[in-house]
């Protein structure tokens, strides 16, 4: 199995997004597994700030030289911030998916929804089961 990095303290979705609660802000991006599988990312389509999303809604898409994938909201809430750097520098997702490659900040309606997501260990198992 290839080497992936899944930091502790983040919550992970089955669709390979990560979410990090910072006070009442939920920062969202895609995981190391997702960015490695997609390969070189060339375009990230994100919604406007102010959009309300339901958990599981498609909120954007990400395009690599291989494929286009949808982005799904890991929790319900209002998108209050969108990473402005990704428009010109989509490679940030490949270079630093948990840092500068973040995608949106959601003001979650109900932070308890995060309990439905996986922790790093559970997500690593989820990835492993798909690598077989």
């Amino acid at each position, binding site marked *: 199995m290839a080497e992936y990095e899944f930091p502790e303290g983040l919550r992970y979705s089955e669709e390979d997004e990560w979410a990090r609660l910072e006070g009442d802000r939920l920062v969202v991006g895609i995981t190391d597994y997702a960015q490695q*599988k997609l390969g*070189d990312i060339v375009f990230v389509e994100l919604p406007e700030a102010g959009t309300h999303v339901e958990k599981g809604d498609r909120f954007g898409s990400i395009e690599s*030289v291989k494929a286009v994938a949808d982005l799904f909201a890991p929790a319900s809430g209002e998108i209050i911030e969108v990473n402005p750097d990704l428009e010109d520098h989509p490679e940030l997702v490949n270079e630093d998916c948990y840092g500068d490659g973040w995608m949106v900040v959601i003001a979650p309606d109900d932070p308890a929804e995060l309990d439905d997501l996986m922790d790093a260990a559970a997500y690593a198992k989820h990835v492993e089961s798909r690598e077989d």
Partner: protein
Amino acid sequence: MSRGPEKVGNTTRGIAYEEPLLFERSRPGRRGFALPPLDVPEVEPEALLGAEACRETIPDLPEVSEVDVVRHFTRLSTWNAAVDLGLYPLGSCTMKYNPRQNEAAAALPGFAGAHPLAPASLSQGILQLMAELERHLAEISGLDRVSLQPAAGAQGELAGIMMIRAYHRHRGESRDRVLIPDSAHGTNPASAALNGYRVQTLESGPDGLLHPETVAAAMGPDVAALMITNPNTLGLFETHIEPICEIVHTGGGLVYGDGANLNALLGIARPGDLGIDVMHFNLHKTFSTPHGGGGPGAGPVGVKNILAPYLPVPVVRELAGDEGEGFVLDYDFPHSIGRLHAHHGNVGMMIRAWAYIRSLGAEGLRRCAEMAVLNANYLLSRLRGTYHVPYEGRVMHECVLSDRLLQGTGVTTLDVAKRLIDYGYHPPTIYFPLVVQGAIMIEPTESESLEGLDRFAEAMLAVAEEARTDPERVRAAPTRTRLARLDETRAARRPVLRWQPAGPSKRP
């Protein structure tokens, strides 16, 4: 040091052209025309047209002679890969040979010189051909009516979903969800979304097929349609198509059939008989019209009678009874979704498709499907074991492999595709369908001989062997092309879409 020609006489390697951008051929004052001296009074353009219609500066256009232009584009044309040069195994695209006979038919002066604004009385030949082509497509697909209007498969698909929406709206039903299996064509969700539908993806089973219980579980009173591709993008025939259509119909929905893979079914199975209500035809795939580089296409759309009131206008109608004999364009469809194309549609493609259908006949069309399926299965059987086969089973007109057995060599699907160019082949479709990681999708079509298939199989096997013995060579490919491997990532991230003068744009 002199480098003499490698071969003299009957040479095949002596001429290979480089060609700059047309802008780089530009020289100030060079022209491709000459005008006689002005022999009428000169007027100021601003006085004649108004100042707002006149440019203040002339855009930086290339200044070239006629021979410059002809050589430029002719040289570029020699860089093309084409089905006229070799096997073009692009999966899902049905790159079959385009018979020259089609071209001869389309070039007949009566067709080539016809004007779209000529009255019906002077266009009877073309109208009759359109009426016949509609009937042929209806017969082949098992549907009742066909419109030849749409200009491409995607527009036929859009028209089909627009008719489904019009049908539900006319019945006073508000349905806003469309079901699409993960093995359907990529354009399907776009067509549904353009019509304001929410798209729900249905997962195909471990056998690569859509299962009735999956459809039943997703069905509801808000479902407008199921969009299905059969054979699906894995090249597999959806064996549960009949019960699936029944579930959708019972729930009040309609079934859209993506016609892109019709080549596998010609003369053997008819989508209309299987439960499909509406489908499009890709004349450039199944019916051997050219795959234009964005040039004229044709994507007729066929329907069952329940959808006929919504067909795009105009529809060709044969006169009957007191009306006399002949054909007219009929606009009298009050529930029509409207016009999709100017005039008659892309008539040149219709002539070619008609010529193809009539020259092959029913037996010949069936033979196309049989040979296309046989060829795909032959390639699959030669490549199985060397390349991973993600979904086993008898394939139809195309087969899907993956790079899984090359894991550990560092060589991926992309590298295999690039290396095939060195062997003289346009690469297959790669990384599609999305349900297969590292997919390699091969559609040889019926056009290839056994020897041609063997040569391609040998190339695929040789590349896999190289992946083990000399992976760097594969990863560096293509190396025999004019330009070595291009940086596709940079091209996508930082596209240079316009020529810009480097420094002073004109030579002194």
